[in-house]
């Protein structure tokens, strides 16, 4: 049976053809906006921008997102997750423009820059953290407190209490470096590396890694009494994440994973403030400011772009499709915006913090042994089923969900 027709005809992207045609016909020798400046970069569909107009464009876009959602209140403690990649550095600089004394409508939130150091897991020699801290130092105008958190801390028993204790003793410092905690970080790092090597697939490794990062950020938010966490995922990242989430059965939670505001945990909001940005815009904004890109690795950075991992595949697929059909990413983002979070959930996943849908689980034997079915979302069930026994015990146990929720919920 012809499956094309029976599911509703073509979408051969005739709109995309138009877009590409117009793009190749546009003038490239003068700024599209002001009609006078020398073009510096081509963005959107073939629109050349001069440096000044480009700056205005990105700053406006950044502020517009925050303004529309009215998410920041005066005096809010704002956690800013800086991974060191191009979009996080751009986000930091864009946020700083809100503190420029010359700008009207200033941002009055109180930024807490968080650098989670997971470089010990990747074999590439140097950690990007020193370079990140140097760049954070150079950012003008914005008041800030910086937190450096070694990723392996999340595996410490009573992680939250220990961190809270350390924070209380150091809260007035400009830089709060958790590496100074009285913990055997080497030993913890070894144990973390060993845990991760017992995760059979790279896909599961990346998934669990991200979940643990979110746990660290939420825990820190709780300790600091912050209710807002800024994340730097771009439109490309979020479009790819949408497909990755769909691929692991997290369809019910797409709004949290891909919309501007991620309210998976009651009491704290993850803000995807770079949602409307392309990686190119981020990279060129950094060039405008003379900020050099920092190389940050993930588990699949050097793997095969197609079968390396689910995230690698979705990223390659979306970027590739976008190159041929320029309306791809914006359409996927529009799809995401039309979805709403589900209402019938009673708890959050122990690992990734997403609300869990009540359903008859299709659980493998491995999972039922541990009595985890109703404590994990679909995606985490899949990730953990690709892990060795010990990982399946460690990861949910190290979960800080209850502590995080206790911090925020008013019962």
């Amino acid at each position: 049976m012809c499956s094309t027709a029976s599911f509703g005809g073509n979408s051969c992207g005739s709109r995309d053809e138009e877009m590409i045609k117009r793009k190749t016909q546009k003038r490239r020798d003068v700024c599209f906006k002001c009609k006078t400046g020398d073009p510096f970069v081509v963005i959107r569909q073939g629109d050349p921008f001069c440096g000044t107009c480009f700056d205005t464009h990105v700053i406006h876009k950044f502020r517009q997102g925050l303004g529309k959602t009215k998410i920041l209140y005066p005096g809010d403690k704002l956690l800013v997750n800086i991974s060191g990649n191009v979009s996080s550095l751009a986000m930091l600089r864009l946020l700083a423009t809100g503190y420029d004394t010359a700008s009207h409508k200033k941002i009055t939130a109180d930024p807490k820059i968080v650098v989670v150091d997971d470089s010990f897991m990747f074999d590439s020699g140097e950690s990007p953290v020193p370079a990140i801290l140097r760049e954070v130092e150079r950012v003008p105008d914005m008041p800030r407190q910086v937190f450096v958190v070694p990723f392996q801390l999340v595996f410490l028993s009573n992680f939250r209490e220990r961190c809270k204790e350390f924070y209380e003793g150091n809260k007035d410092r400009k830089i709060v470096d958790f590496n100074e905690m009285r913990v055997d970080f080497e030993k913890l790092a070894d144990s973390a590396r060993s845990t991760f090597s017992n995760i059979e697939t790279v896909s599961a490794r990346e998934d669990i890694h991200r979940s643990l990062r979110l746990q660290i950020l939420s825990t820190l938010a709780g300790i600091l009494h912050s209710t807002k966490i800024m994340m730097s995922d771009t439109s490309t990242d979020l479009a790819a994440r949408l497909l990755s989430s769909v691929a692991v059965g997290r369809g019910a939670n797409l709004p949290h994973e891909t919309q501007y505001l991620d309210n998976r945990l009651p009491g704290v909001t993850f803000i995807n403030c770079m949602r409307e940005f392309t990686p190119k815009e981020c990279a060129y904004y950094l060039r405008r400011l003379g900020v050099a890109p920092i190389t940050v690795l993930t588990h699949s950075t050097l793997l095969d772009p197609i079968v390396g991992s689910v995230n690698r595949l979705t990223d390659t697929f979306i970027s590739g499709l976008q190159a041929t059909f320029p309306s791809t990413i914006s359409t996927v983002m529009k799809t995401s915006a039309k979805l709403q979070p589900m209402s019938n959930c009673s708890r959050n996943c122990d690992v990734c913090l997403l609300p869990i849908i009540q359903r008859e689980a299709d659980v493998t034997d491995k999972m039922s042994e541990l009595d985890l079915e109703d404590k994990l979302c679909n995606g985490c069930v899949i990730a953990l089923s690709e892990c060795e026994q010990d990982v399946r015990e460690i990861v949910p146990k190290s979960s800080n969900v209850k502590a995080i929720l206790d911090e925020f919920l008013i019962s």
Partner: protein
Amino acid sequence: MNITIELAGGAELLFGNQRKHEVTLPESDKQWTMATLLPWIRDNLLQERGELFMQGKSVRPGILVLVNDADWELAGELDYVIENKDNIMFISTLHGG
């Protein structure tokens, strides 16, 4: 013809972690364009796998190209004709964090 190739954002990982390469392009009766330079780079400079640098005839989506510090889209992308002392930069914006 001598050109400089610069790499950043993770692209250098594919080229033995070396961020700057001074390159002399072999003589050719045909003009060197980005379209011919890219495969030459892949076949001669790349130390890791080519599919992480190129896709089809162009760079992999996610890798930005600058010619003499300007967006290559302003210079004609693959059609740009390489000149002596040109600086070609590749910035990877792929993932991390």
